[in-house]
């Protein structure tokens, strides 16, 4: 760790925290480079890369051709000779063009060449949702990536985690997919100054509780916290575990919480079938059947593409009200006034009324 380490914190948005992590990394190590479509354009990838080219130069921070697959291979090749590339994609969906390089090369290189050379690349993927993003701008495919041995998959929720985990990702010797939910970019939170890294692996107890364990990731943790606040008033104490990473998963912390509460609900930002939520339910059932007092449950997106129309996405997303309903159902409690307290926001397809598009 550098000497300049400091832990004083300020309130920053998630996007600003990402920008700060990139500044810190580029400053700390001249082997760090950062590129992606629009990395140095006037919008700076939702503000996350603003100012980097001006400060660190166009050899290290640059825009790129529309060549997701090749540019992933370029990152891999550069990393084999000591460079630490950070690649940025404005939507996860665009990165699907790079599956060959990700799956066949990045994930395998260290293993298939017997540990001779690792691939320390970081790939930032931004998840879309709402505002008519539709079928090809809103996919949450973290379960795909977690399925591939050799990758690490990070999904922060808080601005502090965004900064600390991005720094750890950049300096991790392995390929890391760093997944940012668009609806988190304007969330504000305490963020420590300096080169403060949060280890990849351990989850974060976002809220302590004793009646039920809710495991969630990324933006779903925000909805879970709203639900838990309401449920507390109803006398239900929720323990919310914010995964932070979906590969590796902090199984020990999940098991300990389930041992305590005996009940498990898992929330996922992606489609239900083949989801991370499904994996967590399965493994808890296999390893902790004795601790479970009732069947575990999950809430995820429906197994259909996200439609574009405002009319078709009403009630489409899992919101705090759905979480509260599910918890009350699991505990055999009346649903009561959930709908009055946790109404689907209006409009329902944006992170807040302040958001007026177009991205």
């Amino acid at each position, binding site marked *: 760790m550098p000497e300049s380490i400091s832990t004083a914190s300020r309130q920053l948005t998630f996007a600003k925290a990402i920008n700060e992590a990139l500044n810190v990394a580029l400053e700390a190590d001249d082997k760090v*480079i950062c590129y992606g479509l629009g990395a140095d354009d006037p919008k700076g990838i939702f503000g996350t890369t603003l100012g980097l080219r001006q400060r660190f130069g166009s*050899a*290290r921070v640059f825009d*790129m*051709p529309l*060549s997701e*697959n*090749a*540019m*992933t*291979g*370029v*990152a*891999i*090749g*550069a*990393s*084999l*000779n*000591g*460079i630490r590339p950070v690649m940025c994609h404005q939507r996860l969906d665009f990165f699907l063009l790079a599956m*060959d*390089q990700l799956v*066949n*090369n990045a994930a395998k*290189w*260290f*293993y*298939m*060449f*017997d*540990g*001779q*050379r*690792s691939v*320390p690349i970081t790939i930032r993927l931004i998840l879309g949702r709402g505002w008519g993003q539709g079928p090809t701008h809103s996919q949450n495919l973290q379960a795909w990536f977690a399925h591939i*041995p*050799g990758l*690490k998959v990070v999904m922060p929720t808080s601005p502090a985690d965004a900064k600390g985990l991005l720094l750890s990702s950049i300096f991790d*010797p*392995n390929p890391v997919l760093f997944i940012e939910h668009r609806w988190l970019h304007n969330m504000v939170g305490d963020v420590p100054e300096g080169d403060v890294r949060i280890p990849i692996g351990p989850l974060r107890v976002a809220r302590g509780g004793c009646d039920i364990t809710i495991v969630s990731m990324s933006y779903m943790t925000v909805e879970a916290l709203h639900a838990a606040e309401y449920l507390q008033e109803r006398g239900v104490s929720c323990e919310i575990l914010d995964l932070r990473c979906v590969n590796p998963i902090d199984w020990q912390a999940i098991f300990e919480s389930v041992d305590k509460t005996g009940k498990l609900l898992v929330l996922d930002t992606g489609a239900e079938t083949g989801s991370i939520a499904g994996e967590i339910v399965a493994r808890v059932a296999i390893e902790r059947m004795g601790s479970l007092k009732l069947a575990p449950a999950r809430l995820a997106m429906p197994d259909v593409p996200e439609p574009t129309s405002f009319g078709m996405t009403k009630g489409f997303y899992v919101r705090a009200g759905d979480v509260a309903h599910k918890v009350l159902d699991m505990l055999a409690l009346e649903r009561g006034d959930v709908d009055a307290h946790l109404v689907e926001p209006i409009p329902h397809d944006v992170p807040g009324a302040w958001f007026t598009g177009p991205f």
Partner: protein
Amino acid sequence: MTPEIAKQLLFRMMRIRYVEETIAARYSEQAMRCPIHLCTGQEAVSAAVGLVLRPSDFAVSGHRAHGHYLGKGGNLRAMLAEIYGKKTGCAGGRGGSMHLIDESVGFMGSTAIVGNTIPVGVGLGLSIQLSGSDAVSCVFLGDGAAETGVFFESMNFAAVREIPVLFVCENNLYSVYSPLHVRQPKGRKIFRLAQAIGVEAEHGDGNDVEAVYAMMKRAVADIRRNGGPRFLEFDTYRWREHCGPNFDNDIGYRTEQEYLAHRMQEPIKRQHDKLIQSKLLAPEELAAFGESLRVEIEDAFCYAIESPFPDDTDVRARLYA
């Protein structure tokens, strides 16, 4: 072309040929338990590149990489041990014939997916550019790779950022059993595609090892001096089957006549005859080299065969650094 280089080119081609012929002869013993893709007939490009590049230059390749690996100076014992799946193999037995590596001589890896190391080689070139050295990154590819999207993407980026990369395309006319004419428009040349993308490119006879050497030498010197990239396409021909040790002209995807016509172009015999006729190579010197080669290859096969397998408990190790 000095006599010494002319001889070295022949000896290097002979070494690659002899290794491949021995692999082919022993493959049916079922001890090499992985797919192999032999480059018999295509040795000229591999032989020349090793005399042009320095060990500190990088190279990457694809599934048909034995020649490129040996040409760049890769360790023969480690390559054979790898094909035999042994712990002493260049990838510890995890990769086999399609995943060769010898970083000590700059051979940074070969992989099994067509076109898949092209951008990796460009990325190595980017790292050279960022470090400011005069090294070169060499990417070996075949005619099939020139049909992949990543070929165009990688060439484009190399051109736009002037990355120091030497693309070496061996056009052997076949991708598995698919001939060039069902894959690429009639009359189009791959090096012309490279030129259209913005990469300086040339085309040469891949059976004339001295011509290959001269073109490579010029291109590499130019990259070192002025930056890259450069693209060289060499016409060559695959003698044996796509995957495996056999000849396969009997299965009907190409004619015996075509095969024999290409075989007449034989790069090794051509160089051999040239050197003997011009008296640059004495028969005794050739015989002595042949004998040392026989001893070296016998030793390497013994080493590979006698080396231990990796322990099966090792299968979960080295997933993450």
